[in-house]
């Protein structure tokens, strides 16, 4: 990163000159990302829709990426900028690991991402914000951890579950009622897909499972075995079983009243 800013500064996102603009720039935006921890790891999942104003720009966009062996980033906000930010983030983690011979700590990775978001503040003021969710397995503390961000790069660690993007309010509400501390890995993956379903239910910019086109949410799991993305079969299995239950109960599982 330091090397890049010295030798080819034009390749870094923060160093570009922006033309003055009026109004909002139209570009594809990614929508909802959710994460939840379970004993032994963390799951991170995202829907597949990208929107540009009222138009669906892409139905099968991928918004969850491995950052390295033990962490992943889910992106909400301007898709083009976010994907570039993730690419640079991946590069930095790998570069550090190779040069130093050791991985950055999870805190270190989270801080680094924070700086990168802050460098995008100028763009964010023009409506091109990038707000990722960072999840990883902390090898030292032996547990999954989630970090959420705001547009200014403010970082906060979330306990249990977190969501970002336009459908996050609804997803967070769903997880609030369904989350427990003793979820298994399989239950945690079901929880995040439930939350995404609820987000898609109430937020027009979030895409639900698309059975006709076989487009299902991307679900990733990070444990001490490292990063793993559920195969299409596995995630379609989860999405279909949820869908089936929702045919009877459209609002999903009911939590106890008291």
């Amino acid at each position, binding site marked *: 990163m330091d*090397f890049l800013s010295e030798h080819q500064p034009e390749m870094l996102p923060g160093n570009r000159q922006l033309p003055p603009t009026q109004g909002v720039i139209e570009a594809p935006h990614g929508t909802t990302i959710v994460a939840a921890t379970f004993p032994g790891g963390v799951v991170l999942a995202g829907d597949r829709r990208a929107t540009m104003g009222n138009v669906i720009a892409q139905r099968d966009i991928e918004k969850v990426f491995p950052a390295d062996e033990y962490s992943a980033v889910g992106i909400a906000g301007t898709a083009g900028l976010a994907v570039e930010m993730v690419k640079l983030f991946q590069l930095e983690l790998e570069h550090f690991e190779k040069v130093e011979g050791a991985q950055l700590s999870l805190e270190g990775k989270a801080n680094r991402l924070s700086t990168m978001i802050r460098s995008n503040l100028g763009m964010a003021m023009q409506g091109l914000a990038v707000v990722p969710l960072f999840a990883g397995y902390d090898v030292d503390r032996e547990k999954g951890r989630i970090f959420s961000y705001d547009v200014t790069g403010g970082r906060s660690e979330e306990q249990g579950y977190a969501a970002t993007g336009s459908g996050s309010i609804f997803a967070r509400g769903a997880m609030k009622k369904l989350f427990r501390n003793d979820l298994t890995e399989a239950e945690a993956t079901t929880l995040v897909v439930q939350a995404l379903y609820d987000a898609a239910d109430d937020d027009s910019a979030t895409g639900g499972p698309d059975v006709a086109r076989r487009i299902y949410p991307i679900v990733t799991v990070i444990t001490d075995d490292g990063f793993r993305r559920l195969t299409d079969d596995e995630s379609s299995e989860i999405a279909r079983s949820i869908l089936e239950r929702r045919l009877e109960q459209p609002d999903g599982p009911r939590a106890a009243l008291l």
Partner: protein
Amino acid sequence: MSTPFYVSPQQAMADRAEYARKGIARGRSLVVLQYADGIVFVGENPSRALHKFSEIYDRIGFAAAGKYNEYENLRIGGVRYADLRGYTYDRDDVTARGLANVYAQTLGTIFSSAAEKPYEVELVVAEVGETPEGDQIYRLPHDGSIVDEHGSVAVGGNAELISNFLDQRHEDGMSLAEALKLAVQALSRESNGTQREIPAERLEVAVLDRTRPQSRKFKRIVGRQLARLLEANGASTEAESADNGEDSEESGSSEE
């Protein structure tokens, strides 16, 4: 004021080459071998922190003999080159050939520049392919030339002796355990024809394994895994070491 002596360019170059070769010969040797599933790096290295082998990129590994600070410098340069290239274009566009060329240029320039002392290093850049035919191994001596190697290569102190030994015995399609055993045998040969023991904790071993599911194929083999691989040969090695048991005892005193 005294007039500087005239030194012919030939003599100057020969002196510099001699200087670099001597520096490299002081270091321990290391070997790089092809095996069925990839490429294995084996060397004797008493230090756990200062590595002789390292990952440059997804499929590219780096090995160096000679002066640590000099090859570490080149290694970081290589990682930067590879990461920058991969970020600018695509991960597939980073190749061992390109990297070897950059190293050759750097070493060549330093070697022939009168202002700098020549680097006392010899490098190996290896790239693992989809199939054994796609594997590439380049050896880069101190003067900036490139040698395209196949099968096995040795650099460092007893390089000539070791590579002769390897050339005779290395076969295509060896298993990792077999290749490792051959490498250790080769490294434990002394210039006076005797053998010495290299304990497992002094060995540094790394592989570029084409069967790894991750895109990054480089992996260090340490601790239990290394012990298990060495043990896999245990039965056959013991039989042999009974034969040259006398040799290895002798070599204890002839070490260094």
